[in-house]
């Protein structure tokens, strides 16, 4: 049984039903804010304790790859917003095109992220037994730069996991939109997955300056 936009008994109007679904999505996103918030808290604490070490470690990640990824991800948010608009005005073909564009940009982001992770792997900057920062091993510097890279991988990794889940949701949206299921009367999945996608974009908007742009001058 597929929902196609019928009014459920507990609602008075379609608009009320739509707003309730949106409210529920926002409540979920506020739990996501606190989930990522814990990592931002840990980051803030450690950066304020080891500002110089964080700046040294941050300089070893490739700025232009992060900057390109920021452009790609904001671009994907734009195509997602356009997908929501297409579904609202009933342009079914355009909806599928914008959803595919969003998925492609999301995959480009993940690909570039993979290139960056590979760079860190080659440089022995992945925290663990093979870790080395700089020419000569130094216990204190190695320990504290590992703190930065642990946070770097935890935060970008959790962000990437959200992107992968988002890509899965987009695949489903594309499948359903090709069937012509979304109409101006019923497009709640497009709107709510859109909210999720924009949220993941916002997390990156903060990750980019905090991880890539420490002391670049």
């Amino acid at each position, binding site marked *: 049984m597929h929902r196609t936009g019928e009014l459920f008994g507990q609602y008075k109007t379609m608009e009320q039903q739509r707003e309730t679904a949106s409210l529920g999505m*926002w409540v979920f996103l*506020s739990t996501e804010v606190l989930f990522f918030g814990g990592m931002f808290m840990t980051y803030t604490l450690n950066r304020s304790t080891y500002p110089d070490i964080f700046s040294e470690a941050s300089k070893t990640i490739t700025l232009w790859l992060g900057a390109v990824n920021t452009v790609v991800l904001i671009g994907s*948010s*734009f195509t997602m*917003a356009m997908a929501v608009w297409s579904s609202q005005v009933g342009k079914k073909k355009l909806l599928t095109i914008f959803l595919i564009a969003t998925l492609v940009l999301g995959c480009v982001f993940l690909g570039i992220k993979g290139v960056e992770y590979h760079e860190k792997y080659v440089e022995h900057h992945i925290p663990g037994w093979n870790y080395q920062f700089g020419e000569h091993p130094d216990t204190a510097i190695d320990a504290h730069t590992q703190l930065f890279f642990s946070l770097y991988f935890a935060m970008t990794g959790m962000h990437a996991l959200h992107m992968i889940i988002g890509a899965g949701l987009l695949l489903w949206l594309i499948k359903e939109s090709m069937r012509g299921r979304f109409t101006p009367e019923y497009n709640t999945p497009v709107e709510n997955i859109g909210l999720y996608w924009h949220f993941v974009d916002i997390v990156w908007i903060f990750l980019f300056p905090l991880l890539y742009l420490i002391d670049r001058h």
Partner: protein
Amino acid sequence: MSEDHSEHHIVSPKIYFTIFAVLMICTILTVMAAEIDLNQYFHGLNIIVALTIAVLKASLVVLFFMHGKYSPKRTQMVIIASIFWLAVMLLMTMSDYVTRLWS
């Protein structure tokens, strides 16, 4: 509850594109600002500029891409509450942490 009967607001592609363009300009600005040593004028100015631009970008995404500006008040309350609790966590923890220097 009269607001439940309000027309569903559709944001035009023109607004989406304008926001996208502003977000692109902000991204270029934040990279350029990071490459200038602003800390020589005021200690910590680089991070203040970087985070101000990030907050501006995030606000534009919430207000326009996520329709926060056009949402009913109870949805806006959830948005503000999540920012508030995040601020409580960051500010209260840090205010404790930075005032422990005597130990």
